């Protein structure tokens, strides 16, 4: 692919101003915001269920306007720093696209599941702030949403390639666009001043060990993605399970028996609370 074409497509993708959000979450968050007795934890938990709203909140709190770009990677912290007024404004200004509910519902479940998996893996590996890993898990397929929104015809072509050739969504993206959602994630992260660890988590999850900084973040998301696909929860756009990189497990110093434990935790959480837990 020529450099010009790539730059043009990058510009087209980054022109995304208003990402869609799920109407259910929108309504519930608005209700909580109006209730003076609700806590930031409750609101953070709700917002964390929605990757688009989460991305918007993180984009806003990391923008230079607030004076600390690239520092905040959990929704809970973002809420304390932004305040309810800004959150309300964000929600009101968020237009709701039907596209999200119709063509992306499987992706939403996959994303929330991945967030939950990342949280469990980070805890098993003994990392601080497992919520940060959960946020990366939640946002790891954001690039797919952006393509669906900004380049709907390309999205159809990718879907067709996945169906006809039975390849990973990522490989179909590369065939159609010349790059995958991992690359788009990196552009978006830069564009929105997201913290470096979050950027690595969402852009490095398909090649985790090559990440120079924060390789553990990328490894956790990689393993989380594989686990949630193995459990067949939601859909990442194809029916395949990406190969689990053994080096990623080695870097996290996790063995198979520990992964079993993580799977048990996840299954218990899904049965207990449904797909909403495990997020900041």
């Amino acid at each position, binding site marked *: 692919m020529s450099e010009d074409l790539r730059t043009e497509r990058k510009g087209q993708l980054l022109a995304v101003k208003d990402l869609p959000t799920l109407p259910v979450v929108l309504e519930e968050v608005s209700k909580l915001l109006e209730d*003076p007795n609700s806590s930031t934890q409750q609101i953070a938990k709700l917002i964390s269920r929605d990757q688009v709203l989460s991305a918007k909140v993180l984009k806003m709190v990391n923008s230079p306007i607030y004076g600390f770009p690239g520092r905040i990677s959990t929704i809970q912290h973002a809420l304390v720093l932004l305040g*309810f007024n800004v959150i309300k404004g964000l929600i009101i200004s968020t237009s709701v696209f039907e596209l999200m509910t119709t063509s992306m519902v499987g992706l939403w479940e996959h994303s929330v599941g991945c967030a939950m998996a990342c949280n469990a893996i980070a805890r098993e590996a003994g990392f601080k702030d497992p919520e940060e890993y959960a946020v990366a898990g939640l946002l790891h397929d954001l690039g797919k949403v952006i393509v669906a929104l900004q380049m709907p015809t390309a999205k159809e072509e990718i879907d067709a390639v996945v169906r006809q050739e039975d390849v990973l969504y990522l490989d179909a993206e590369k065939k159609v666009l010349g790059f995958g959602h991992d690359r788009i994630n990196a552009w978006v992260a830069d564009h929105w001043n997201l913290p470096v660890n979050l950027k690595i988590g969402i852009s490095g999850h398909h090649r985790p060990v090559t990440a120079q900084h924060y390789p553990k973040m990328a490894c956790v998301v990689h393993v989380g993605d594989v686990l949630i696909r193995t459990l067949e929860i939601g859909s990442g756009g194809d029916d395949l399970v990406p190969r689990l990189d053994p080096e990623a497990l080695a870097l996290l110093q996790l063995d198979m028996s520990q992964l079993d434990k993580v799977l048990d935790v996840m299954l218990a959480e899904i049965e207990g609370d449904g797909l909403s837990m495990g997020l900041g």
Partner: protein
Amino acid sequence: MAFFQSLWPPDQVEWTVFQRGPMALEQVFNAPPDLLLVDDDLPQLSGPTLVNMVKSENVYRQLPVVLCLTEEKPLENMDFHAVEMDDFLVYPISPLEARSRLSLTLHRASRELDANPLTKLPGNTSIIQRIQDLIDRKEPFALAYVDLDHFKSFNDKYGFSRGDEVLMMAARVIVNTIRSFAGKLTFVGHVGGDDFVFILPPDTVESACQRIVESFDGIVPHFYDQDDQERGFILSTDRKGNMQRFSMMSVSIAVIFNTDGRLKHFGEASQIAMNLKKKAKSIPGSSYVLDRRQE
């Protein structure tokens, strides 16, 4: 000039009129007025030059200056970047508009003047006024002084722009926490540096302190480099130039209460608070101390 003099009754606004720039300058420098209205077309010293002479001195920068232009001189030729006035009027102008524009300029100047340049929170003048006002009205309130522990060593190690990030963060945490206790008796001010104050009704202040401590402690590690974050402390030179370990930043909050009209003057409030602050700072990590005397 008679036009401007007629805008307000003489007992409300007093005008001093100079025909020449140099004479006005001397008076302005010795006894700055609340507002300076300059005619564009002055003999000897032109209006824009006079404006810039006043504005180039930091002590007089805060003085609001309005340039009075006439319709003959086209606005296209004005270089607003080069002439540092705060506003302008184009003569002829209706009395209502002239009065409104001048009073807006005056109010805008007083608002901007006291705000902290970094956080845009109200500064000392507004803080003192607010507290004295509450004391005078014998309104019960809790007044909290917040400051950051180990801020200086952080600033020394990472530089002042990273330090400013932390101050912005602290300001946001305090403002949003206070705002969530909605009510007319809430106020947040920035004394300067790493010192903040807030005012709340006495019964809500303790839970506000708890929330500020909790939020600050959760967020502040993200402002350190990854290796310092993992270590849990930073190495920096102390006041004597020796390398020393410094703990992560934390908040200390000292709260005093004005109940039953016990405070008579702002000075009392700040003195009690300063003593209390020493106590809060002597506790390692984030903490708050409530002055429970006379309760």
